[in-house]
Structure formats: structure tokens, C-alpha cells
């Protein structure tokens, strides 16, 4: 045998994969070949050196951090856990629905009615009834009374429950505009629920819809959003899908890589679903065990369930009275970990729809409700760009603060909201506009490591972060970004067309 062949056998011998006959041949060769003997000695030394390397042990907190993430994800991501949130949102909507039929003067919250609530992460989410004291019976009992009275009671009950858990004072002048949602957390005030005005179908760029809040209101809304950075779960209620889209775009622009630097965000699939809804598909889409390591996510991307259901199952007044409630999207990522977690567990976001159907007597909220969810697509943030954007944003904070201090002689606005440049929250969506950073194709990217192409891609009318338009938020404390935040976006509308996302 040649030295090269012997060398291969020496390697095999090192690994214990050499039969006795060959080993004898190797030993014979090595005994008279200095080069091969040297190589064999070096290889044995190498093996011994590897064996002598100090053992590496995992950080003590690794196990806890894994379990903590799983607990959070299971609470917030899995369908059975997401349901209480949906149910909570439904109860909120119930209050809104009841208020719609009241004869009260229009409180006119306008097209955008945003309400954020927070809920701690890391502990089990109790059933809505446990959190709020509200039950279906409560809702039905309320319905037997006057709608207005019932709505008021419901709101008060929610508020009472929330007051008990409130952990943070309200911002000065902050008022609730929507009855607190039923996740039962720090409600604002228990004022009468508003009458919901439909969203304007469209508006010229730059034009402010007649129902649009004034700049001060916008500023307050932005400030409230900013002040809720520590929220673990946020429920944001919109009354038009268009508004939800813009909000999502803002969230992505800000939460992923920071304000004003959306180039690293690749977004898609968070817009309204446009395909057909098939019964049972949602369940498949929500099953976590459909997600294989590197496997394809369950199919989805359809939608239009609300309107379709209205068309096929409802008619006349009842259909007209049906309120379409959609959990429009969920954003559950803040840092790298959470993006990865979202990828690992859901391969995207879950978009759910609920339908609240009036009771047979036509007077109240019934208990016929369906809950469907599906995976729509993926969002990815480029970590490096995100870090840079955060750094830039932070630098911007400092300069803003200094400017404010020099102007007012006092510390700057803690929220960091620039009143003079509060973006148009109600600006019209740009149907068909390509995602700013989704690449030329407009399709969301493959998630690294998942081996999974995004599903669906942006639906028609999808809006992505616009580089020219700052996100509708004030800058945030980077430290607070570390907290995972799940934003549940609920769209409430009685317009089936709007519900389908076809404006």
C-alpha cells in the first residue's frame, strides 16, 4: 500500500473503524516509514488534544429562557390560547355593537378609533370571564335591557375590572374612546361607548377626511401608542381595514428597524386576505404541528370570510346588522428572538376572523360566533439595519430632547412625539403600492433558516412601510424594545366590502 492509502487507514484507525487485518498492515507500514509514523503520532496527539479541551456548558439561564419563550408563545400563538384574546375582543365589540344601536348622539370618534390595552405576558391568560368578570350570560342579560344601558354596564364592568389591575397612571388628558376591551386590563375610563362611524372609503392624498381626528388627537394617539411600549399585548381596534393597514405599516416600520428606515423591512401578507375562505382551512392553518423544521407552512392567504358568510348565510336586515369582526393581524415580534420565535412557531402571522351574529330576536348580540385563523405571510427584519436604525433613532431622540429643552427650558416630551410632524394616521392607503422594502418583486422574503417561502405575498392593496412617511409613533426606548409585544389588531366593520378588503 502507498503512504497515502496508509494515511487514510490511520484516520480510520483513530476512529476505531479499522478491522484487524488492515491494522496489521498499517502497523507494518508505520514501523518502517517515518513519515507515516509521524502522521499517525500527530493524529493521535490531535485526538488527545481534543479530548483534553475544557468542557463547554450551557448558560444557566438557557433552559429557563427556552421554556419562557415557549410559555409565551403557547399562550399567545396557539389557537387555543389565542381564542381568549379573540373572545375578549368579541366582548369589546359587543359593547361597541350595542352602542351602535343606541339613540345617543354620535360621540364621533371618527374613522380611526384606536384603543390599546395591555396584558402581561409570561403568565397564563385566564378566560375572558375570569379576567373581566364578563360572561356570555352577562352580555345576553345586558342585551335584554336597553342597548345603551347594557353597553354602559358592560363598559363599566370592564373598566372596573381593569381599574383593579391598572399598573400605570394614564397620560394627562388621556380619555378612553372605546369601551375597554375584554382582555381586562388597564382600561382608561368607563365613559359611554362611542358610536362608531364608518371609515371613509378613500381620500385624496394629503386630504383629511371629515371624520379625521385633529392633529392634537393624532398627537395624543401617537403619544398613547408610544407610552405603551412596555405593553406585552396590545389590542388595537380599528373600524376600517384601511386604517389597520396603515397601522400595521407603521408598526413594522417602527418596531422592526426603527422609524424612517424601512429598507430593512420586508413585509407582506399583513394586508387583508382576498382569496376565498374555506371552512376548516383555518384550523389547518392554525395547527402548530403543521410546522415542520424547514417545512412549508400551512396554506392560507384566503379571506373575505365575513363578506362571504354574509352573502351565503345571511340576508336582509340580519345580514345588514351583522358585524364583521376581524382580528386583522398579530405582530408578535420585537427583537431578533421574537422574530425567530414567530418564524419557528407560526411561520407568519395569524389572521383571524370572527362573526358576531345578532340573536334571533334581532335585538342583541347572540352567541353564534365562529373563529377562524390562517397564516398569511411572513415579515422579516434585517437585524443589522434594525440595529442601525435604532441607533439612529436613539441619536434622534437625544437631539430632539436637547432641542425641546433649549426651547422650553424643560425636559422634552417623554414620548418623543414631534407634534409638528405627527404623521397622518388617516392618510389613504395606497392600493397596490409595493412594499417599500420587500424587494422589487413585492413578495415577502424567505425566512432565513426556515426554508419556507412566504405565503400569499401581499394581497392587493397591501401597504408597506413608506420610506418617505415616518411611522406614526414616537421614538421608543431601545431597552423597551426588548420586551416582546403582541399586537392584536381587530377590525370592526359592518361593511362586507370593507371586510373583504376590496375598497
Amino acid at each position, binding site marked *: 500500500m502507498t503512504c497515502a492509502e496508509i494515511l487514510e487507514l490511520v484516520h480510520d484507525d483513530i476512529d476505531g473503524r479499522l478491522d484487524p487485518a488492515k491494522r496489521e498492515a498499517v502497523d507494518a507500514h508505520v514501523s518502517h516509514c517515518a513519515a507515516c509514523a509521524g502522521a499517525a503520532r500527530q493524529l493521535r496527539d490531535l485526538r488527545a488534544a481534543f479530548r483534553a479541551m*475544557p468542557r463547554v456548558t450551557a448558560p444557566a439561564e438557557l433552559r429557563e429562557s427556552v421554556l419562557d419563550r415557549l410559555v409565551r408563545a403557547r399562550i399567545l400563538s396557539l389557537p387555543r390560547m389565542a381564542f381568549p384574546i379573540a373572545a375578549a375582543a368579541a366582548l369589546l365589540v359587543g359593547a361597541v355593537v350595542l352602542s351602535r344601536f343606541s339613540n345617543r348622539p354620535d360621540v364621533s370618534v371618527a374613522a380611526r378609533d384606536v384603543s390599546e390595552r395591555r396584558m402581561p405576558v409570561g403568565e397564563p391568560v385566564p378566560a375572558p370571564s375570569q379576567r373581566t368578570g364578563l360572561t356570555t350570560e352577562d352580555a345576553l342579560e345586558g342585551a335584554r335591557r336597553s342597548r345603551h344601558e347594557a353597553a354602559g354596564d358592560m363598559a363599566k364592568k370592564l373598566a372596573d375590572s381593569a381599574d383593579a389591575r391598572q399598573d400605570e397612571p394614564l397620560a394627562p388628558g388621556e380619555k378612553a374612546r372605546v369601551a375597554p376591551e375584554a382582555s381586562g386590563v388597564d382600561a382608561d375610563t368607563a365613559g359611554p361607548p362611542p358610536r362608531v362611524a364608518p371609515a371613509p372609503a378613500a381620500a385624496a392624498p394629503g386630504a383629511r377626511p371629515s371624520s379625521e381626528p385633529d392633529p392634537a388627537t393624532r398627537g395624543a394617539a401617537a403619544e398613547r401608542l408610544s407610552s405603551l411600549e412596555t405593553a406585552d399585548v396590545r389590542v388595537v381596534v380599528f373600524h376600517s381595514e384601511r386604517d389597520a393597514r396603515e397601522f400595521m405599516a407603521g408598526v413594522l416600520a417602527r418596531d422592526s428597524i426603527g422609524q424612517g428606515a424601512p429598507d430593512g423591512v420586508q413585509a407582506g401578507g399583513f394586508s387583508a386576505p382576498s382569496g376565498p375562505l374555506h371552512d376548516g382551512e383555518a384550523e389547518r392553518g392554525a395547527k402548530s404541528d403543521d410546522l415542520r423544521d424547514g417545512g412549508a407552512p400551512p396554506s392560507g392567504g384566503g379571506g373575505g370570510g365575513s363578506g362571504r358568510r354574509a352573502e351565503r348565510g345571511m340576508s336582509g336586515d340580519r345580514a345588514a346588522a351583522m358585524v364583521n369582526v376581524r382580528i386583522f393581524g398579530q405582530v408578535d415580534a420585537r427583537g431578533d428572538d421574537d422574530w425567530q420565535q414567530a418564524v419557528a412557531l407560526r411561520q407568519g402571522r395569524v389572521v383571524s376572523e370572527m362573526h358576531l351574529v345578532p340573536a334571533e330576536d334581532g335585538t342583541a348580540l347572540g352567541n353564534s360566533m365562529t373563529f377562524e385563523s390562517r397564516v398569511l405571510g411572513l415579515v422579516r427584519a434585517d437585524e443589522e439595519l434594525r440595529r442601525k436604525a435604532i441607533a439612529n433613532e436613539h441619536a434622534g431622540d437625544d437631539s430632539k430632547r436637547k432641542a425641546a429643552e433649549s426651547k422650553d427650558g424643560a425636559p422634552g416630551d417623554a414620548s418623543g412625539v414631534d407634534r409638528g410632524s405627527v404623521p397622518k394616521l388617516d392618510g389613504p392607503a395606497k392600493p397596490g403600492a409595493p412594499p417599500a422594502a420587500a424587494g422589487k418583486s413585492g413578495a415577502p422574503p424567505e425566512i432565513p433558516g426556515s426554508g419556507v417561502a412566504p405565503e400569499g405575498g401581499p394581497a392587493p392593496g397591501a401597504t408597506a412601510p413608506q420610506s418617505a412617511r415616518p411611522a406614526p409613533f414616537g421614538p421608543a426606548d431601545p431597552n423597551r424594545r426588548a420586551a416582546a409585544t403582541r399586537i392584536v389588531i381587530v377590525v370592526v366593520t359592518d361593511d362586507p366590502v370593507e371586510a373583504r378588503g376590496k375598497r
Partner: protein
Amino acid sequence: MGNSPRTDRIQEVSGAGRGDPDGQRATGSAEDMDAVRRCLAGESDAFGEIVARWQDRIYSAVYRMTGDADNAKDLAQETFIRAWSSLRSYHGGAAFGTWLYAIALNQVRSDVRRRRAQKRGAPISLDAQRAGTDEDRGIDPADRGPGPVDASATTEHVYILRKAVAALDPDYREVIVLREFEDLSYEEIAEATGVPVGTVRSRLFRAREELRRVLDGRVQP
């Protein structure tokens, strides 16, 4: 290939070695299967047992491949999250540990790809223009000096060896880490890396020859 007495001795040593501190086979045991079954049955504590049992080995492998303690922690965490979400797809065809290592390898490879992509868009540092290095190819070097894990125990030859391993081609680094540190067999490495056993053998051969050439006798046991 039959096992000789010498082979048995090596396996016995490795069975109690670094990859197998509890004396069980490095890539799985009946306890793992039991824990998986209990996980699937809804016992949430069972997954904690799995993590506890495997965290050192997975973290160690990832750390040896990346050379970055923080990154290794993140990737190990991702490995377990992935494992949890894919647990139903594990049917016991491969040893549980091999399955976990495969997930960990995927995480490491994804991380390398991500970093490579980031570096492509980043300004080029003149300091990084050392021909033939991972940095040249847009890959983070797997070793950035003594890490926090074993810094106190680092001796010169350990550091030299780590540097040499870090400089290996990622494909070679994988097999060396799994074989020399994690004590996986060729077959287990083949399952974890997704390549044939013959490829594992040739990669190990080349990796060791490269190490032998680079170290040139500087490493003594």
C-alpha cells in the same frame, strides 16, 4: 466494519466521554423517547427535561461551530424552540440527539448565511482582506478569542486548537465538532449533516489533515 477490541475500547471511552456525560449514548436514550411521548401527550414539564438533558451538548456544539457565546446561546435556544414546534414530526427514526443536532446545524447554517448576506451589503474593511479566511468569504470567523465559557481553562494549546478549528471550512468544522467534541459516530454525523457516510469520512480526513498541517505538531495532549 466489525468492531475490534480496540474499537470497543474507544467506544467505551467515548461513551463516558465529553459528549455523553451521563453515560448514555450521545444521541439518545429511552428517557428521551419517553419525554417526547409525554410532551406530545401534553405534559409541559417533559420538554423541560429534554432541554435540561440536551442543553449542554447542543450549546457546546453550536458554540464550537460559531465561537461566539452569545450567538451560541441564541442559536441553541432557537434549536429547542424549533424542536418543540416540530416535535410531532419526530417519529424516532433517528436518535433524538441526532435529530436535535440536525436542527442545531440548520440554525448555525442559517446564521452563517444571514451573516454572509449582511456582510455583502456592508462596507468592506481593508483589515478583513486576508485571503482565504472566512471573513473574506463573508463568513464570521468561528473563533473570536477566548470565550467566557472556558476562558479560565484556556491554555495556549487549547486556544491554538480552537483557532485552527475555527479556520476550517464550515463543512469540515461541522464534522470535526460532531466527531471530536460531541463524539458522534460517522452514521450519526451523516444523519445530522444530511450527507452520506462516505462524505463524512472524507470530510473528517480532510479536516484532520488540514488541522495537522496548520498545527504542525504545536498541539500536545
